[in-house]
């Protein structure tokens, strides 16, 4: 049964860039920072493509943000997604608002499945998938993973980790939870968020990049969706994590005890 899949591709800071907080704590210094697709979203796109390759259907990629987010849509299209939707919005967003926007996109696209990253690596909030499922009253399976390792044969063959039931009505999802894996069945349409060990995302080939340029991308102004765009969470201040102190060598246990008690005050 062909699946219509809506998948998200958020623009985030490249984790390999050096991130510095602005002196006044209002944000980060963006000069010299590179951007890329949220790595968990890359996994979601990969999973969507595998499902499409196996069952047929369509992969629609959505990104919400400033014009620059078009780059991440193009990146997903270059990987193989069919078309894109850019919801344009400058300014801060939070998971509550993002899920409201995705809810509108769901209404418009009526996908069988929404695949998202379990969280985005900028703010690490891990809420959008859950909110979206709640808003739509649909089943959700978060932290999708799989039993096989990323070095396994199934992975080499690029099998989807999320498995469509024979009747095409539900998905079997292996979820990563504290201390192990849980397998759940979720009826379609469903909301699935992807964890790290679900798959190894492909990278776009150069012909893929060229083809992506010609794929359609619809642009929608967020304000036109009739959603309250005011974030519910206000960021008060950002600060750098405390600098790690260097280690030191102690001669014996009594000295260690003295330091732990006297200096570190942990005893």
């Amino acid at each position: 049964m062909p699946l219509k899949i809506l998948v998200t591709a958020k623009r985030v800071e490249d984790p390999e860039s050096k991130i510095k907080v602005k002196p006044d704590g209002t944000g980060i210094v963006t000069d010299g920072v590179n951007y890329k697709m949220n790595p968990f979203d890359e996994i979601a796109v990969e999973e969507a493509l595998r499902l499409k390759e196996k069952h047929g259907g369509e992969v629609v990629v959505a990104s919400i943000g400033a014009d620059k987010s078009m780059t991440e849509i193009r990146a997903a299209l270059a990987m193989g997604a069919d078309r894109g939707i850019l919801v344009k919005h400058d300014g801060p967003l939070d998971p509550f608002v993002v899920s409201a926007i995705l809810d509108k996109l769901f209404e418009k696209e009526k996908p069988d499945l929404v695949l998202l990253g379990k969280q985005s690596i900028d703010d690490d909030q891990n809420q959008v998938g859950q909110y979206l499922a709640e808003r739509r009253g649909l089943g959700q399976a978060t932290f999708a993973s799989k039993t096989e390792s990323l070095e396994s044969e199934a992975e080499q063959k690029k099998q989807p980790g999320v498995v469509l039931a024979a009747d095409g009505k539900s998905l079997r999802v292996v979820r990563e939870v504290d201390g192990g894996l849980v397998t759940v069945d979720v009826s379609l349409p469903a909301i699935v968020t992807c964890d790290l060990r679900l798959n190894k995302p492909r990278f776009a080939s150069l012909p893929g990049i060229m083809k992506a340029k010609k794929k359609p991308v619809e642009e929608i102004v967020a304000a036109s969706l009739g959603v309250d765009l005011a974030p519910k969470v206000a960021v008060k201040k950002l600060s750098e994590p405390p600098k790690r102190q260097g280690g030191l060598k102690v001669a014996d246990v009594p000295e260690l005890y003295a330091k732990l008690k006297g200096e570190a005050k942990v005893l």
Partner: protein
Amino acid sequence: MPDKKNASYVQSLCMGEIEEEIIVPFPKMEDGEKETLGQVLASVRQLLSGREKEFREWDVKAEMPAPFIEELRQFGLFGLVIPEAHGGIGFGSTAYSRVLQEIAKFDGSVALTVGAHSSIGMRGLLLFGTDAQKARWLPRLTTGEMIAAFCLTEPGAGSDAAAVRTTARRDGNDWILNGEKIWITNGGMADFFTVFAKTPDAQTGGKASLTAFVVTRDMPGVSTGPHEDKMGIRASSTTTVRMEDVRVPGDHVLGGVGQGFKAAMRILNAGRTGLGGGSVGGMKKLISLSARQAVDRQQFGRPISEFGMIKEKVGLMVVETFAAESVVSLVAGLIDQGYEDYAVEAAISKVFATEALYRVSDEALQIAGGNGFMREYPYEKAVRDCRINRIFEGTNEILRLFIALSAMNDVGQQLKELASVVKSGVADPIKGFGVLSGYAKKRASLATGLVGDKRSFTRLSPSVKHAAVVVEEATRDVAIAADRILRKHGGKVVGKQFATHRLADILIDLFVLSAVLSRVNSIVEEKGAEGAAQELAILEIFSGRARRRMRSNINRIDDNDDELVKVVADHAFEKEGYSWDTL
């Protein structure tokens, strides 16, 4: 607007003129291509990262495994410069050069495999191919189903490309090729060979000249030798290519019978920004290795990054890289803007970037100390891999001759006209007067240092004034020097290599400095002087050093020991060695 067909910034320098509009503002890539390039670079990084171990292994074994070449094909790396209409990416020189830069950060052999295909292997087809020829081969070259090689060098024809002995004999509509090419990059895996052979030229009464042919591996009589055991870029395929009575159809001629020498030069010129880009990539990689190494390594109770001599090395590595990147990008930008006479500029970018990389890799190894010498570290491979860059695609000596002699061409032209006018007396007084007075005026204004037409920059920000003045003064000096050299040696200047070497080095410094100047100027305009503090420092360092080098070279035009050096060299040639001992 400068005339894109004939304008050359460097050639104008020798006339004492600064063709500012050619290089200011610094070329900028158009947004659409920039976005595609960004995606391609990101994908290239994904393809090549985390494979250091494999690259190292292939270096030791001197091979590049077939499955990896297949990966490159699937990835689409062989279609970078092929137009979209033929299924390629259609990158211009700037974007192409930038991709090679990225590949070279990971491995020199991989960069060369891709580069030899796109820069030179099939460049002749792109430049001179007929529509039918392009339609026939480009689609397969794009996918890498056919990999391309450029076959010029022979045992007796290295720098002297015109000495090629491979022959092409007419047989009806076909040609019969015989001969052997050596050191052909991609020879072992290529299916498409651009081969240069001697053809008797009907127009010049049977006098032989070169012609370029497309030879494919499936033609009977084509064979390639074993993989050469090399110092560096060991995984890159280098082999002989033999042709024994190979029958090549008439429609395989590229760019016309007898046009081969010009074609070979144009191909090499067009490909130079590829090698330049690769060199810049190598330097960037080495700087990140060295910076980390210097911060991590403690001696005398401190990271060695705190020591002045290490700071000096790393600081200058950055300056050289910035300069090489500027000149390579400027040349690529000129090509993309449609300038046709960029051969001297391209040669300068190749010489500067390949020599900068060699210095940078040597210093990077030094910063790593004993570890630098060990094979488990990447430095010794970097030093080995980059050494070839100064030799192939035109040795840097030959390119220096080319830079100096071409740049002096216009001056020589003027002098020649001057001479013939003087000699012919009053044959054509009006025209003669024109030449004479035009050149004399120019000379006079040079000598007096008067600021006149095109003597100075007019569009630059005041923040870069200091370096701009260095370029302006050196331009006046170089014009006077070129004039002096030509007056001294006349037509014999071709044999005066000590003098041409000096002039070439001055022109290299002057053009590279102009590139840095224009680039920093554009950055200042964008970010303001305060935001561009680092770049302004780099400009100041480079311009100061370039000024001192140029000054020294100019002083040595008359005050030198050339004749003595020749005597000592000739002695060594005669004795075939060193003649002294302290015993």
